[in-house]
C-alpha cells in the first residue's frame, strides 16, 4: 500500500492521509483484517507528526473503516461501501475541479445547487 502526502498543499495533512487510506480500502489494496503499520513508523515515513496520523486514523474509525485497539494497532475492519463510494466521488470531484481551476466557492456552489 502506498501513501502520498503533499506538505505544500492547502489540504490539511490528516485529511490527505485519511483520504489515501480510504482510497486504499476502497480499491482493495487494504483488505479487511489487515493490520496497518504502526502509526509511529508511517508518520516517520511521511514526515508528519504521529498525532497527525492518529487524527487521520480516528477519522477512519469514526467512519467504521478501521478498528484501533491498544497493543493490537490499527486493523482494517472492512469496507463500508456506501461511505467509501461517496467519499471517493467527492475526492474525484475536488481533484478534477482543482485541475480545472475552479475555486472552493465554485465547487461548493456546484454541489449545493444540486442538493
Amino acid at each position, binding site marked *: *500500500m*502506498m*501513501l*502520498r*502526502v*503533499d*506538505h*505544500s*498543499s492547502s489540504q490539511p495533512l490528516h485529511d490527505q492521509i485519511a483520504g489515501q487510506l480510504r482510497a486504499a480500502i476502497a480499491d482493495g489494496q487494504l483488505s479487511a483484517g*489487515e*493490520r*496497518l*503499520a*504502526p502509526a509511529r*513508523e*508511517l508518520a*516517520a*515515513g*511521511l*514526515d*508528519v507528526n504521529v498525532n497527525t496520523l492518529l487524527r487521520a486514523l480516528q477519522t477512519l474509525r469514526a467512519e467504521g473503516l478501521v478498528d484501533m485497539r491498544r497493543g493490537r494497532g490499527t486493523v482494517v475492519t472492512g469496507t463500508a461501501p456506501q461511505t467509501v463510494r461517496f467519499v471517493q466521488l467527492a475526492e474525484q470531484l475536488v481533484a478534477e475541479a482543482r485541475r480545472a481551476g475552479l475555486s472552493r466557492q465554485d465547487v461548493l456552489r456546484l454541489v449545493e445547487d444540486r442538493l
Partner: protein
Amino acid sequence: MSDEREEMTMHQDRGGSAENGAEDGVENGAGTGRRLAVGIGIPVVVLALLVVPLLLFGADLPDRVATHFDGAGTPDDSMTLTGLVVFTGLLLIGPGLIMVAIAAVASRRMSRMAAPFLVGMGAFLGILGAGIVAQTAISQRNLSSWTEADNPIVGVIVLIVVAAGAGAVGAVLARGLPHDPAATAFRADPAGEAPTLDVADGERVVFTETIAPRWLLWPVVGLLALTVVMAYFTPWWIVVLVGLSTVPAVLLCALRIQADRSGLVVRSALFGIRFAKVPAEDIEEATVIDVEPMKWGGWGYRGSLRLAGAAAVVMRRGPGVHLKLSGDRVFVVTLDDPRTAAAVLNANANVG
C-alpha cells in the same frame, strides 16, 4: 546443497569470465595470501586444537572417555578415544575442512557469498569437532574411569561460543578471497524494469507491505513440538538451544516492509524487531524481478550486506524488488507489490 551451488556458479562462469578477466587479474596477487591464510591457516588451527591436547594428555586419559551426559550432567555413555576422534572427524572436522578447502581452491568460480559461507561454516564445524576432543582430553585427564567425568556444560557453552567466533573470523577472512563477479547468482543482472513516480518537492510517499507466509508456520510448529518432546529426554541446555532456534523462525513468520525517503526497512511484524535497513543514500536503482529462491541461497533471510555484500529476504518464489546498492552490493526482498515499492524507492533516490 553446496554441490548444487557449485554447479550453478560454474555454469554461469563461462559467460562471465571473459569480460571480467581484468578484474580477476587485479585480484590475483592479493588473493594468494588470503587463500593460504584460509586454506592452510584454518586447517592448521583446527588440527592443532585436535592434536595438541591429545599429545599432552592422551596418555593420562581413561580407557574409555565419557561422551554423553544426562540432564544432571552425570556421564551415561562412553567411547574409546579413537572412537571419539573418528566420530568427530567424520561428522564435524572432516566436512568442515572439506568446506574450507573447496572455498580456498575454487573461490574464483564462486559468488561473493559462497566462499565466506563455506569457510564460516567449515571453521565452525572444524573448531567444534576438534574442541569436543580437546575439551574431553583436558577435562577427563587423570580420571581412573569415564564415570567420574564432571558435568561439561560450561565447557560446551564456551566451546559453542568459541566455534561461532571462529566461524565469523573465517567468514571475514574469506571475504578477501577472489570471487567471480559474474558467476554469482547475487550478481545476476535483474534486467527488470525500474518504475518511478513523480514526487514534488513537498511530497512524501511511503510504501508498506506485510508479508506473512503460511508455510513458515509448519517449521515453527515442528520446532516447538521438537522442543517439547526433547524436554523429556535431553539435558535442559539442549532444550534451551533448540527453543532459542525457534525464535528467528517465529520472528520471520510475519514481516513488515516499509519504503520511504529514509530507504527500505524490513522488520518483524511481531515486536517490530528490525532485520535489515537499507539507507536511501545507498540505493542506486530499484528494479522489479522474479525471485527464484535457489538463486538467492534459499528461503528466509539469506546472506549479509556487511559480510557478503548481498542479502535477500526470500519468503516465496515470485515477484520481488531488487536493490542495486553502492559498492557493488545487492539487496532483494520478495513482495506482492514490488512495482510500487521500487517506484517509491526510485522516486526518493531521484529526489534525494
